[in-house]
Each structure stands twice: as structure tokens, then as C-alpha cells.
């Protein structure tokens, strides 16, 4: 069921240090051998620091906890990650310490297959750096289906 009252619900700020080891590990995991992630000297010369892969902010999973995630009720047997978006507003480098705030940006319903209703929840996380500049916005769309995921 779409819980519209969740819209605007906001978690506590969380801290996310950007670490080189994690950036390397993530780059390997997405099969990206770009030396910018592996050679700090080259990265400094060419980019002003070791940059992060476009989808690296997914690793906020390691820094979020139940206080920083706004409370939303999901039936775990029926949820799917439907969409993901990143707006990258300013460069983010290894050594930066980001602050993220996650809120429920939207909740809406759409007709699903077989007469069911699908509920969409948009979770938005805004990141600022140590200078207080907004550097990125991440949006996840979580789908809740009318039936269990494997029969969908």
C-alpha cells in the first residue's frame, strides 16, 4: 500500500569518508581498469585527486544505519530496485568526507500487471562535502509489487 504520509520523512545525517581502498575495490567490481582509480600519482596529475566511479555512492550502504534511513515499511518479499539516478554536481575525491541526508522524496502508485498495483518509493540522498558544497544527489526508486517478486 502506498503510504503517502512517508513523503518528506528524513533520516539523520550520516558521514561517509571516501577511501582509496574502497574506490579501488569498487572499480574492480564493475570491471573498470581506468588507472585514475589505481594510480594516485596519475590521478592527482590528471584529475586533481583520485576520483570516484559514477555509481560509487552506492557504497553509502556501509555508512547508513537505521537512524539515517527514513522509516518506510516494505514487504521484503515484494520489493525490487527499479531505478537509480545520480546527479554529480561537483568533483568528489578520495580523502573527502561527505555528509549525506536521506529523505523520502515521493511515494506513488501505478497499475501493475495482472490487475495489481505497484507502489513506487523514491529515496533521495543529498551529499555535501567538507566545505559545505552540495556535491551529489542520489535517487533510488524502490518498487513494491502486488505479488511476490519471483512470480512477478
Amino acid at each position: 500500500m502506498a503510504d503517502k504520509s512517508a513523503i518528506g520523512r528524513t533520516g539523520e545525517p550520516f558521514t561517509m569518508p571516501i577511501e582509496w581502498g574502497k574506490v579501488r575495490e569498487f572499480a574492480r567490481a564493475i570491471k573498470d581498469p581506468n588507472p585514475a582509480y589505481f594510480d594516485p600519482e596519475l590521478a592527482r596529475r590528471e584529475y586533481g585527486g583520485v576520483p570516484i566511479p559514477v555509481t560509487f555512492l552506492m557504497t553509502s550502504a556501509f555508512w547508513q544505519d537505521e537512524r539515517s534511513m527514513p522509516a518506510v515499511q516494505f514487504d521484503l518479499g515484494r520489493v525490487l530496485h527499479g531505478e537509480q539516478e545520480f546527479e554529480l554536481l561537483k568533483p568528489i575525491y578520495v580523502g573527502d568526507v561527505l555528509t549525506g541526508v536521506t529523505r523520502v522524496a515521493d511515494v506513488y502508485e501505478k497499475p501493475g500487471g495482472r490487475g495489481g498495483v505497484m507502489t513506487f518509493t523514491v529515496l533521495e540522498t543529498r551529499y555535501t562535502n567538507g566545505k559545505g558544497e552540495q556535491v551529489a544527489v542520489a535517487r533510488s526508486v524502490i518498487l513494491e509489487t502486488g505479488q511476490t517478486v519471483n512470480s512477478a
Partner: protein
Amino acid sequence: MAQKLKFDHVAVGEQIPALTVDNVSRIDFVRYAGASGDFVPLHYDQTFVEAVGIPTVFAQGMFTAGLLSRCLTDYAGIGQVRRFKVRFTTRVWPGDTITCKGKITRKYREDGEGRIEGDLEATNQKGELAVKGAFVAAVE
């Protein structure tokens, strides 16, 4: 490597060079789980997926989206992507071959820089769309 695309040299309709990743495997999914912190068991726990009626584990959507993001940064350059959006359509299974590609759909100036906008897609060996994407990137 740090060569940036030039506004005047990029044309609407231009294709982003394809990136093919052969034979994605359970090891890839496990590696992505550990790297990303996505520990949903659907992607590495065979006992769990069988219990819920799915034949094998399958890739995290964001694993495949990661391959697609590399295809984009190989083309547009690191630090140039301003927006990256993906939607997950078909599951990616162990043994699949994934081809990532894209196309420029618009060229314009905004916020004091040249920008390109385009579509991205990751398909499997049967041509089925696994991830559909869109992006905005800066050009010089």
C-alpha cells in the same frame, strides 16, 4: 586518457563505442556485493534463491549499471558525467554476455559548459534489454 571530448567534434546521433563483458559469473556478483554493500541474498545465495523458486542467483542491477557507467566514462572521460540514470528491466544470469552501448541525443550549453545528453543500454546475448540508461556529460 584524460582526453576530453570537444563540443565541436561531437555530433548528435553519434554512437558511444560498445563495451562487451563476456560470461559474467557468480564471482562477479559476490565481488560486487562486497564492494557495494548490497547483501541481498538473491545475488549470491543459491540455497536462498531455490527456496523462493528462482533457478539461480542473478546479478545486482547496479553491477550491470556499473559496467554501463564504465562504457560511458571510457567515452566521455572521468569527472565529466553530470547525470546518470538507469532502469532495470531483464535479469542478468551467470554466463550471460553483456554489451553496453549508447548514443548522443542532444548537444547544448548549460551552466557555462558544453554538454551532451544521450541514451545508454546494456543488453544480453539474446539482445534483451537488461538496463536502460540516460546520461548528461560535460564536453570542452
